[in-house]
């Protein structure tokens, strides 16, 4: 695993316009960064990222199976009690899922360590599945990168295939897709999913989360008063389950992507549960609930809110002393504690690997860099290649 500086394609911003990639720079700072790329060996990809990704996914499903069957655990995961049955049924009915992103600390040698599982509303999908794919295509064509270079990135192909499978379960049904207003990044991610669904022959309709309505005959409606029966929402279950329309969920009879059981594995309470069921697994970091922290004998650890996004409200402790923390609006639901395993440093950057799953198949990686040890939403996205 190397970080290799390289020249930007002179026309890439124009190309981004052409393809509708609007959020490559935010608030004057680069988000998409092609002044360098990462190079992996095929062995690193297949043995140290691809295989553990699929294995951890199975381990997560094991945790879901345990949690939905246990009221005390549902409590620990802060699932609102009135929705326990809704979440449980989504699992017992084997409601299909679409995608996840596991975040790893990985340095090219030692086993990748799982930081968290973004199993409900992962973003940076377009940048990974299409934009870095196009980057490699152009770099190879211009001779800047060796012809035999590959990329761990079958994300778009697998997304379309997954939609084809899901379409068979929803013949002639419209897939509604949704995200919040005023966020170009989320809307771009959803547009990409719409494009992939179209490619799979699915008819789609977009509606903003805030515009979803309560139908006269029950159920949820879109802007045209059409009943929603099948919906992708880029909006976290932990928000939805605490909002007004959650009272409609049982009778609305919507097939959700992601399904409600994803609220369990996108939850940081997953991490201590994984450690409990699979102690000393090479890809896991020791993790504990608050009440078990003293027994854990950890002195270097990271405190993470049970619900949080984009690295908010994370604190790093060394010898029980707070050394670094990020701000944010989360933490009301409690915290978990994870052993401190800092991100590897390449130059001035701390590097995080996002490893994607489509259903249960590993589908590619994204590389993000942050100047801080805590990767936040102003991190930069860099492309990668495989060259053995």
């Amino acid at each position: 695993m190397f970080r290799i500086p390289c020249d930007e394609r002179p026309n890439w911003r124009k190309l981004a316009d052409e393809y509708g990639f609007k959020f490559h720079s935010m608030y004057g700072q680069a988000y998409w960064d092609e002044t360098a790329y990462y190079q992996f060996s095929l062995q690193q990809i297949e043995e140290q990222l691809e295989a553990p990704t699929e294995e951890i996914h199975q381990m997560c499903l094991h945790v879901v199976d345990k949690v939905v069957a246990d009221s005390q655990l549902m409590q620990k995961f802060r699932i609102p009690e009135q929705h326990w049955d809704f979440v449980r049924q989504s699992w017992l009915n084997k409601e299909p899922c679409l995608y996840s992103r596991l975040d790893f600390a990985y340095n090219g040698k030692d086993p990748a360590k799982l930081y968290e599982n973004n199993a409900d509303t992962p973003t940076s999908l377009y940048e990974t599945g299409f934009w870095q794919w196009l980057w490699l295509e152009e770099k190879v064509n211009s001779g800047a990168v060796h012809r035999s270079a590959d990329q761990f990135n079958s994300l778009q192909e697998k997304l379309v295939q997954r939609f084809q499978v899901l379409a068979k379960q929803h013949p002639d049904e419209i897939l509604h897709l949704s995200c919040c207003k005023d966020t170009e990044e989320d809307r771009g991610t959803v547009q990409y999913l719409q494009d992939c669904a179209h490619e799979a022959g699915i008819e789609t309709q977009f509606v903003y989360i805030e515009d979803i309505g309560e139908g006269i005959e029950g159920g949820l409606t879109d802007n045209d008063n059409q009943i929603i029966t099948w919906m992708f929402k880029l909006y976290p279950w932990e928000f939805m389950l605490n909002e007004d329309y959650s009272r409609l969920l049982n009778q609305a009879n919507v097939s959700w992507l992601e399904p409600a059981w994803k609220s369990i594995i996108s939850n940081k309470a997953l991490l201590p549960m994984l450690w409990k069921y699979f102690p000393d697994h090479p890809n896991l970091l020791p993790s504990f609930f608050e009440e078990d922290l003293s027994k854990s004998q950890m002195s270097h650890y990271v405190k993470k809110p049970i619900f949080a996004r984009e690295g908010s409200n994370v604190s790093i402790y060394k010898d029980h002393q707070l050394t670094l923390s990020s701000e944010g609006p989360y933490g009301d639901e409690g915290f978990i504690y994870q052993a401190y395993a800092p991100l590897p440093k390449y130059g001035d950057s701390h590097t995080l690997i996002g490893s994607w799953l489509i259903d249960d198949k590993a589908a590619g990686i994204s590389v993000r860099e942050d100047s801080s040890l805590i990767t936040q939403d102003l991190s930069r996205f860099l492309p990668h290649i495989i060259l053995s």
Partner: protein
Amino acid sequence: MKRTKKIDLNRMRKSNAGFVLKPAALGIAAASLVGCGNSNEAYIYKSVDECVADHASKWRQCDTAYSQALSKARRDGKRFDEREKCETVYGDNSCERHSNYYTPMMMGFMFSPYHSRGYYPLYSSSYRHSPYYGRWGTLDGDYYPRSTTSTSTGKSKSSRKVTLTKKTMSRGGFGSTVSAKSSWGGSSSRGGWGG
């Protein structure tokens, strides 16, 4: 190969449409410019052929609108235990038998060219005292005027432009957490709620 084998770049290009504007939205914009369309526009047709005659490029949507309305009529249509009771409302030879009940036959369906929306089977009756006499009616009791002329060119004239009635009681029951969290001054945030 560990990457996607082929991507059709032409399909990924959004240069003229912009990233957020969808083809459906473009359709509305174009229609509004010539002053003859809005997002609530819908048409009533008696057959798929009539629909296709007006919207040749949307033959697949015509087909879907028809078949979905038909299955909705069969699933949600009013049920009668005797044929006669059904025909008193919907007219002679206008009811079909199921295992142990009768439902009225769908006589038309609603089609929206710019949006996929709900599917609406429509009824009409030859029986003078029926609420469906001389007009189109939906399962929910919304009525639209009926016109039956057609021309020799095959272009449908039976279509009626209608505005769909409100079927939503309230909006905004999702999304409240976001406005609460947003008020925490995350000025450096890109602002997404994914992760």
